[in-house]
């Protein structure tokens, strides 16, 4: 008998926001992000019997979402023209710097795909570099280097807003 978590419905309920957000931050396009996210869950549905645990499902979803989104972003190579293309401003905890959040979203969207993926997995998903390394099949040193370079770029470009 299948455990209650191993249904597509349960996994969608729990993880659709995560998968969609990863796709949205990396592609910068809501429509494309929705499409990629759907593909990821449909692929999971095909392989549902092989999922060993909830943690396994989470890891797999992150990994496949990141890889497929990077591929999709490279194919379309679209830079969002307006910030409205990326997320709406988060509702809480951001009253002080709405402009900074908006600017950051835009700047992150302009980063190269792999760097973007590293930043998103670190700051959206709270993954440590070792976990990001496993998710993206990237050496830990490369993850750290991408994080460092990405943050340097973002710091430099938001200097004026932060002061």
């Amino acid at each position, binding site marked *: 008998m299948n455990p209650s978590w191993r249904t597509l419905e349960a996994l969608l309920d729990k993880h659709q926001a995560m998968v969609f*957000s990863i796709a949205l931050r990396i592609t910068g396009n809501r429509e494309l992000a929705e499409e990629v996210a759907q593909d990821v869950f449909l692929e999971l549905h095909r392989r549902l019997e092989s999922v060993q645990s909830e943690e396994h499902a989470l890891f797999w979803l992150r990994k496949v979402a990141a890889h497929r989104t990077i591929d999709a972003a490279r194919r379309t190579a679209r830079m969002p023209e307006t910030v409205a293309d990326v997320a709406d401003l988060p509702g809480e905890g951001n009253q002080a710097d709405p402009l900074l959040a908006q600017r950051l979203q835009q700047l992150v969207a302009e980063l190269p795909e792999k760097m973007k993926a590293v930043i998103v997995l670190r700051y959206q998903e709270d993954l440590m570099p070792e976990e990001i390394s496993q998710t993206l099949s990237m050496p830990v040193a490369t993850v750290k280097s991408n994080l460092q370079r990405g943050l340097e770029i973002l710091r430099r470009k938001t200097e004026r807003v932060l002061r």
Partner: protein
Amino acid sequence: MDEIEKALKTALQREPAPSGFADQVLRKASMRSMPVVPPVFPPLVPWWRMFPVRWAVAGVVVVACMVGGVAEHARQQRIRGEQARQKVLLALRITGTKLRQVQRQVVQRQVDKSDEEGAEPR
């Protein structure tokens, strides 16, 4: 965690999936699982069993062929038109994709150049 990292955590909070997302995925998943049922055709009635009406049928068939010929031509024209439309859209999409690729490459160059300038010792 410094200021920029805190700001990133705020800026990159998860977005909810669009409304109806889960329903759409579940619907597509269930469509893929449905068995394909082959169509069932009723048994053919041999024409010689229709003796009393065969001339009427022949007349109808001739008229139908004539009308059908015109309709078929229009249908073929629409099909060809739709194919041409798809080709135009495909060609323009491929062109758009390659132009965006160039934009992305140029941006990457600028990022790399900024990195090099930032890394230079002062």
